[in-house]
């Protein structure tokens, strides 16, 4: 399983890729998709919706379980991955590129400091 070094991670298995400005891209980690098994359905939020840190913003359903996905920071949804609607398997096949979930505009970028590095994430698995 791979967890790229340039990403940040949460205890609840979301990864965070830092984009330009105040934006981040969020998805679930390779470990998470592997644990869940084949993903069959994803429920994503509406663009424009605002969430607080640790709020569930979406749902991932696999043949094994239905799991909430949590906001890693406070912020507003500015983009969601429409391709997942017909092809949830992209999360299994390519969690970091084609299988991303949402792009968030952060309220407070300093919240990123509390997230884990690749090494910290893998150490607690």
């Amino acid at each position, binding site marked *: 399983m791979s967890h790229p070094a340039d990403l940040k991670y949460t205890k609840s298995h979301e990864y965070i890729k830092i984009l330009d400005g105040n934006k981040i891209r969020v998805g679930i980690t390779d470990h998470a998709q592997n644990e869940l098994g*084949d993903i069959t*359905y994803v429920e994503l939020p509406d663009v424009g919706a605002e969430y607080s840190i640790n709020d569930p913003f979406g749902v991932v359903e696999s043949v*094994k*379980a239905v*799991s909430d996905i949590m906001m890693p920071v406070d912020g507003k949804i500015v983009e969601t991955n429409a391709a997942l609607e017909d092809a*949830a*398997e992209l999360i299994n096949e390519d969690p970091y590129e084609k299988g991303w979930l949402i792009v968030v505009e952060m309220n407070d970028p300093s919240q990123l400091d509390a997230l884990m590095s690749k090494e910290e994430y893998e150490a607690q698995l």
Partner: protein
Amino acid sequence: MRSVQKTIFEISKKGRKSYSLINDETPILNADDLFDKSYLREQDARLPEVSEMDLVRHFTNLSRRNHGIDNGFYPLGSCTMKYNPRFNEAMASLPGFEESHPNSPEWVSQGSLKIIHELEKFMCEIFGMDAFTLQPAAGAHGEFTGLLIIRAFHEYNGDTQRKIILVPDSAHGTNPASAKMAGFELKQVASTPGGLVDLEALKPHLNDNLAGMMLTNPNTLGLFEKDILDMTKLIHEAGGLLYYDGANANALLGISRPGMMGFDIVHANLHKTFSTPHGGGGPGSGPIGVKSHLEKFLPSPRVGIHLDKFTLLDLPDSIGRVKSFHGNFGVLVRAYAYIRLLGPEGLKRTSQIAVLNANYLQEKLKGKYNLDYDTRCMHEFVLSAERQKEECGVIAKDIDKALIDKGIHPPTTYFPLIVHEALMIEPTETESLETLDDFVDAMLDIDKTAHENPDAVLKTPMNTPVGRPDETKAARNPILKFQFE
């Protein structure tokens, strides 16, 4: 053994029938002359056409593929798949019950109304509550009814801001679903490392927005929430109500009562704890019991007594009907028969043996399978196949498939979510020591095979018409009806 049965559509032959409506007396009428065209089909419905014998063979053969409690061991955790005594069936088949009609006047339905009234009293006694309704038709339906009562209570008191329902992370999946359906917001409460509700995790939620908390005791790990009195005290002090999910009540009969633990509302599953048919053999029944301060909100009509006769009463503050007539009456008769057959001592013995059987299996299996919460269990316990996954690449699902080949229904799998590779096992009191030993042998044999020849486990099941259907494809692209060419 591998032979996939044709569907009823595939054995259909145009024009083949097992009846004839042609005779001298019955006139033949044309539908076009009787009904307006807008009410008529443009094309005939493509119904299967088979002979009577084909039909009987088709469904008899399908039924043989079924696995029920009458076929073999069925240790499905939290589902309490206990034997359904034939005595229950005999009582429910008595003509006075079987041929009664819910619209019959009260004066000819006194016996049936008496069964409802007395069963409510029995449930009050067993669960330590003041009043029961037998209307809800299933466990989740009972939960929903209970939550509507919580809502009615807070609205009655003008506390409309109380919208938060707390649910432990080990809760049954239906708990959050029912709360949401009843218009509440959910907050999950974490468990301690010992698998019990963390009292500290409750405290941030104890405020004016708290509507109540839903709890299963023993919980889904099969552990008794020993801090229950402290928990109910905290919730009550904050103005919330306590809801008891009765799915695991088979551990407590005659030993402890949710009413004594401080619960305000409980549900019972007659199709689990009280031996009425479960699952596809249903229908079910999920009665709800309440303490006296909530009685006026129960679904109406209620069965009461007026001038020494049983009669139906309406309650002005009731949440209203939740089911047509009086719930699934045939199921109520079966549960009534079971309770009368066993009596108080028999019911207590039921729970004692259920707990003993679970502990026996737990002790026999914990050497080869991981047991994350290693303590005395109640009526069920949760193993983990994490060791088999790491050492042999065999996951919980594969162990399930291997069990099917041994004629055993798989346990509840991948639940509760707080245990990885969870296998939740509930043997119930109705299984003999020999059956339990056969299950232990099967589980140990699967573990041995997994270590020696994992591929053999990954290939199971071999003894079923279909081996491993493509679950992912079925979930992503379900085809739910026959595809005519």
